[in-house]
């Protein structure tokens, strides 16, 4: 914007026209009403419910919420199931670095003008646009005791103990669910990394090639540093997503076997809607705990990347 233009722009409050203001609010009204009703009000009211005793009947019909202070949180931290679920959610974060490294590696693989690359990119994105219900149907067959995973591992002589029902085993179900998360996620992050990779100037790569840098050196000394903002964004998104895993668990194992896949949001959901307790107060409190952990992890993510890259603008 040139200086001449800037002086023409109205700066003081009195320069706003009533007509524009009214019109603007009329146009914004639907979005603002919906956001208030279905995003901000539930955030506020849900937080309040966390400190109340509320529920007991479906949709809380009957008694109104009753303030009980931090009682729900005491109950939560004395509930082994909640501790297990919170622990599982934290353990689920293991998927983040693996997922990010793999997506970045795949993005590097397809980021070259070679025949077939558009096909590979599109094919890798297909799991992203797959519904979780469809993924559940397909992966259950893969994980079945007679399924393809066992067949492949058997053919490679990697199954010393015989066929495994991957989703039924207490020690395997968690990782089996995580693999589905990985499968549905890597194409998504690949596209984000691809966008970042295409922003790296080609001369940089070419100069490194001339200097005799190996592909490995080029990856760690050019690609990774140049991709830092993208890596931050992706790891942030992926951390939050991992903490909030619910659908995969719900459709693949429903938290079992023996709660080995029970995640924190699974706990929130089941306290509120499964069985006959309808304990909205306790569920809201659990949701608050997860929200606080999510916020803390986001802040930590930012800190981590900012500190390791102090000269960033």
């Amino acid at each position: 914007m040139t200086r001449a233009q800037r002086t023409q722009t109205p700066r003081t409050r009195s320069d706003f026209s009533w007509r524009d203001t009214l019109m603007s609010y009329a146009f914004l009204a639907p979005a603002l009403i919906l956001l208030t009703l279905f995003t901000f009000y539930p955030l506020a009211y849900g937080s309040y419910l966390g400190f109340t005793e509320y529920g007991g009947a479906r949709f809380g019909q009957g008694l109104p919420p009753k303030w009980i202070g931090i009682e729900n949180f005491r109950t939560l931290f004395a509930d082994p199931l909640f501790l297990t679920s919170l622990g599982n959610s934290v353990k689920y974060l293991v998927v983040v670095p693996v997922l990010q490294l793999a997506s970045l590696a795949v993005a590097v693989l397809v980021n070259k003008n070679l025949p077939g690359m558009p096909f590979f990119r599109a094919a890798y994105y297909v799991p992203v646009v797959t519904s979780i219900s469809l993924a559940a149907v397909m992966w259950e067959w893969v994980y079945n005791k007679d399924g393809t995973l066992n067949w492949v591992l058997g053919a490679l002589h990697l199954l010393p103990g015989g066929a495994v029902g991957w989703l039924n085993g207490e020690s395997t179900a968690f990782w089996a669910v995580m693999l589905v998360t990985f499968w549905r996620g890597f194409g998504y992050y690949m596209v984000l990394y691809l966008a970042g990779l295409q922003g790296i100037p080609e001369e940089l790569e070419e100069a490194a090639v001339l200097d005799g840098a190996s592909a490995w050196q080029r990856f760690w000394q050019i690609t990774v540093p140049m991709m830092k903002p993208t890596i931050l964004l992706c790891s942030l998104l992926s951390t939050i997503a991992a903490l909030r895993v619910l659908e995969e668990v719900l459709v693949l194992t429903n938290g079992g076997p023996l709660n080995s896949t029970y995640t924190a949001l699974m706990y929130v959901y089941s306290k509120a809607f499964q069985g006959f307790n309808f304990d909205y107060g306790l569920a809201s409190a659990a949701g608050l705990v997860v929200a606080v952990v999510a916020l803390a992890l986001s802040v930590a993510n930012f800190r981590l990347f900012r500190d390791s890259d102090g000269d960033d603008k």
Partner: protein
Amino acid sequence: MSAVTRPIVQTVPHRRSNKKALRLVLRYVMLTVVLIFAVFPFVWTFAIAITDKRAGTSIYDFPASLFPKAVTLNNFLEVYRTFELGKYVWNSISITALTVVGTLIVSALAAYPLARFRFPGRNIIFAIIVATLVLPGETTFIVNTLTLKNMGLLGTHLGVVIPTIAGAFGIFLMRQAFLGVPTALLEAARLDGAGEMTILTRIMLPLSKPSLAALGIFTLVGTWNAYFWPMLVLSAAPDKAPLSVAVLRLKGQFNYDPFNIAAGSLIMMLPVLLVFLAAQRYFMKGMEGAVK
């Protein structure tokens, strides 16, 4: 990206070109391994869905079940008839259409003043909308079901749709598109006496078609595939459930007929797959736009 073809250097020693070829082969091998990982479940499901089950084959008979001997479309017909799949297809279409139309309207309306007018409170409103992207809403689904219950919308398609149509993503996307429309065009229209609604529908929207299409497609695929929220809202009205929810019920009911389940699943995947293949570019570009 510029497609710079590197000049073929004649003097490259054989060993080096061999190494280069080897690296190329290695790249394609790795790409193929990832490809198998990404699409294998689909290929197998497809094979099961078109297998003629009357031959008495088992889906777990490898590798035979990957290459069906007798191919048929019977499974699709059977699952469509016996499970009244048409009903669920219709539910999916209804929920998805309402959501897409609602999202486009609400986003475009909100984005117009945010992009084009200066009014008191604009920055605050913009900040509020941005905030929805970072606020962790772990408890919103609980309160939202209670709200829908009070509004009498629980168990209806409208109840699934309304809470989802106002979102930062759509408003951002449309605002970005509107910012790109030349100011001179709007001023000319105003001089001709056009009202703001006319300007929005006759100038802004036609000039923002690519963004509208991108938002529409994103919303369509997301809504068609959504599981948790429609399952929750429609838990007491199973007949109104979309395909994504019904397919899992199908699994419970026909646990011993995987051929029908596979066919039903493919019926569900097909529209999304077609939309994705047709609009791949929008997806990739839309995603890339999120980083830049």
